[in-house]
């Protein structure tokens, strides 16, 4: 008779216990009890006023999910690092997230220049690190050869420009006016310029400026020049919110706010932030803006109201706005992606899951998601609205949102969309 090995017996017993838990995966950042996610975004510096709420809002949603069982029993731990919206810092912090913190995936990275540098520096492709729901509209991130693990969430700047171009052409009060574009002279602005070209819209003048360089004096000089145009010219602003604020305040100083028809791109059009930056509510009143979301103040929207509840409980004292909405929506998509990858969670599994099932995820976005094995594009459409003095974005004139969808690369005109988004999962907890 063989002697029974106590060690073997313990090992068998241990294996029986372990078999009831999700299988251990080999990829970093995931255990039987936890999934570590990383976020590099500005928490300090001038851009933090606009986007500083992202980490805590995202964490609030994950805390809510954790309190409701997590993802197949695993709690989500979000590690947020401050990159100040600086490319070198983004590269450093993203590398820290991957090498030091050993996160399973990145989520919600913000910015074009920052993430371009970070993606390469942290070697996300080589490490096959899922780069989930990147907050930039730079269409270059849809290049699967260069960024095989990245999934965009925002529609591209080129799509936005095409839809703005159509909006101007279709709006009788805007079409005959002179038009001016003020945009960042980088991938952000260039993507937009290309989109307007695809839309066939020609500006009377295009002013490009390097990020962070548009001073009040330069803004005043530009507006003074534009104001020489007759009628009520159209000014399209494609920059970050702080720059939008600089330009609108310059218009206030020059008493030119009503001289122009203002169209603000989605990146720089958050009304709460504009007001916080000192723009007058009377200036915001009437500004036209594109969006793919419901308005963050629209409590009749089921996603907004559910996220507001979560924000009140898990992110107390922080006002609910478009950034919080965006953050929670990103977090909800992330939970669905993790669930879609199954209990045996791997990096390759998450990437594959988004490619095959991502277009069916529930989302607050009013435009469809376009994930597939050949596309890592998120939303592809916008509706047009007009801000009121309270900072609410309301459908332009008609009182009903009109959604257009398009692509980033062709001259085909944006098309009217009949897309109906999925209802929010019960209590905002995905069960896909």
């Amino acid at each position, binding site marked *: 008779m063989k002697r029974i090995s106590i060690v073997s017996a313990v090992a068998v017993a241990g294996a029986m216990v372990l078999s009831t838990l999700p299988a251990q995966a080999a990829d970093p950042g995931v255990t039987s009890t936890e999934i570590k996610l990383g976020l590099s975004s500005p928490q300090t*510096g*001038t*851009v933090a006023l606009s986007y500083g709420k992202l980490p805590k809002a995202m964490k609030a949603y994950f805390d809510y999910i954790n309190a409701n069982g997590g993802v197949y029993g695993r709690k989500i731990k979000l590690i947020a690092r401050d990159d*100040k*919206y*600086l*490319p*070198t*810092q983004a*590269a*450093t*912090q993203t590398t*820290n997230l991957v*090498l*030091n913190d050993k996160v399973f995936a990145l989520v919600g990275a913000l910015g*074009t*220049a*920052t993430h*371009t*540098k970070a993606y*390469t520096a942290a*070697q996300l492709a*080589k*490490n096959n690190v899922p780069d989930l729901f990147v907050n930039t509209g730079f269409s*270059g991130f849809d290049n699967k050869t260069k960024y095989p693990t990245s999934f965009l969430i925002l529609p591209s700047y080129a799509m936005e420009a095409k839809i703005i171009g159509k909006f101007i052409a279709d709006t009788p009060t805007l079409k005959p006016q002179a038009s001016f574009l003020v945009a*960042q*002279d*980088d*991938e952000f*602005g*260039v993507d937009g310029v290309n989109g307007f070209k695809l839309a066939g819209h020609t500006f009377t003048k295009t002013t*490009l*400026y*390097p*990020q*962070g*360089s548009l001073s009040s004096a330069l803004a005043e000089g530009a507006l003074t020049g534009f104001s020489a145009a007759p009628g009520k010219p159209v000014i399209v602003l494609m920059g970050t919110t702080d720059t939008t604020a600089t330009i609108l305040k310059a218009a206030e100083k020059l008493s030119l706010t009503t001289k122009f028809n203002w169209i603000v791109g989605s990146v720089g059009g958050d009304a709460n932030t504009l007001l916080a930056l000192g723009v007058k509510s009377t200036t915001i009143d009437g500004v036209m803006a594109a969006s793919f979301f419901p308005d963050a103040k629209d409590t009749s929207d089921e996603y907004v109201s559910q996220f507001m509840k979560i924000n009140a409980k898990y992110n107390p004292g922080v006002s609910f706005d478009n950034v919080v909405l965006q953050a929670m929506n990103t977090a909800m998509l992330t939970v669905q992606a993790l669930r879609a990858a199954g209990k045996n969670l791997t990096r390759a599994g998450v990437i594959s899951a988004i490619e095959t099932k991502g277009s069916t995820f529930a989302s607050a976005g009013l435009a469809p998601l376009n994930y597939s094995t050949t596309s890592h594009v998120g939303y592809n459409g916008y509706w047009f609205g007009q801000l009121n003095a309270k900072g609410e974005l309301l459908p332009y004139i008609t009182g009903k949102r009109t959604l257009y969808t398009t692509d980033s690369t062709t001259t085909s005109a944006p098309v009217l969309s009949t897309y109906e988004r999925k209802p929010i999962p019960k209590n905002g907890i995905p069960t896909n």
Partner: protein
Amino acid sequence: MKNINLKKGLVALTTAALVATFAVVVPSAARAAEPSCSVAPLALYNVANVTTCTGVDEKGSKYEIRMPAKFNGTLFLYSHGIRKSVNLPAIPVVAPTGYVVDYSPEVAPSAEVATSLLKQGFALAGAGVQAQGWNLTEQTYAALLLSHEAQMKFPKISKVVAWGNSLGALSTQALAEQYPGTVDAVGNMCPSDSGLAEITMAGDFLWGLKTFFDPTIKATGYSAGTAGYMEMLGDIQKVLGVIVALKTALAINPTSPTWPTTSTVPAAYQAIPVRSAILLIGLVSGVSTQSKTYDASSGPAGAGETSFGLVLSPALAVLENGAEAALLAIAANYDMEIRAGGIIYDNSKTNYSARLGEDGDAFAAPLSGKTFTGYMLSILAAAPRVTADPAAVARFKQMYDLQGKVTVPTINLAATADHITPPGATTHFLDLYDAQVAKTRAGVEGASQAGLVTTIWNRPSDTYTTFDKDGKPVTPDVWPNGTGHCNYTTSQILLVAKMLAASAKSGKSPSASTVAAAIKKDANLFVDPNYRAPLFKYRQ
């Protein structure tokens, strides 16, 4: 360690002709003789009873061996970094009190490291190579001779660890590859890439300075003899003049600094902030955007915090680093041209737009936007280029080129913001090694085995720039760890030495857990098998 077949080594190197071709400034070569030895405590290092042997090898290289009384059997054979090959008069920054070519032997990276290793019972040896400058061939050979000499003199040496800094690391790896069996472990610290890769980086930066700021800089094609020497000195003066002008302009108006008066760039283009031109030539040549003072992120507290880190800091870092890179380019290129007998730097076909690559996106703001970047690239595209002399390049290429052949445990230590030998050199070596391992897996005999190379990366702290009460950046007395050239702490070097000694004994690389434990307390060191620093632009 196997027996060294010195005769075979001598033939393999075909050195007589090669060394003669590349000889630059050679001191009167004494015949190799028995080293002169004395036993004494090393007062400076507070080490008791060390036998110090000095001598001159058959090629004229001075050497030194230090043998502690309580020897543990392992010799550390050190190869020093590049030194200037010509005497220089007093020149600010470059040689404030003048420079006389230094042929003195160097046995360790620093006195502190030497002290510690001697106290631990390790023997040390190093040469002062008879020909300075880009002396890869001569230094490899000097190390080979010294290894042999040390073992002849001290038969109780049972293990040899070869290690080196910068060019010395390149020659150390060359020694290990060309003479397998000579050494038992290899340490490559701040390793240099090949001469052509290095001179392309430094030469591109110098050519950029010339093109944008002073076209009278000669940069390449120095005349023979005294005339060439004077041309080289003249270039140093001109580059210093440009750097001083740029620093002055940046101090007066950092946001919109003026261009140097020596620039011939059309006035319309000089509307571009000159800091963007500095950054551009740094990015296309591969000079680090993190330097002694500037981390490319921090800004003074207040409204300008973000914009300083975003717009100014990377350019200021490139200027701080590039000043050294350009001056190195002049001295190194002058030396290399003499060695090779003609121009070896070549940018006749370089596409600087492609070189900029996605750095143009990441640094769009400090480059003053896509439009201005395009203008600056158009200037570089239209500027007269340099074409190398094919015969000179062919002669230069006779020097050994690394193959990635590794037969003994090898440890790399590379800093991510080294501005003289960027970490891409290590990446290139790792790529070569991986290719060799793949050959082995494919059944090719004589290729490298897997698992023999460990790479420790040294990076700066996330942020390190400090500012005074007026918001002015403060230049520290010493380079922050992770920046600068071969700027390792004594403890970092010693932890590498400890692992090398253990590997030499066991014949095995340190385990992942051993390395992790060794670097655990050092936040500036990391190990990741999947990490690769960007290659030199020359190789991209």
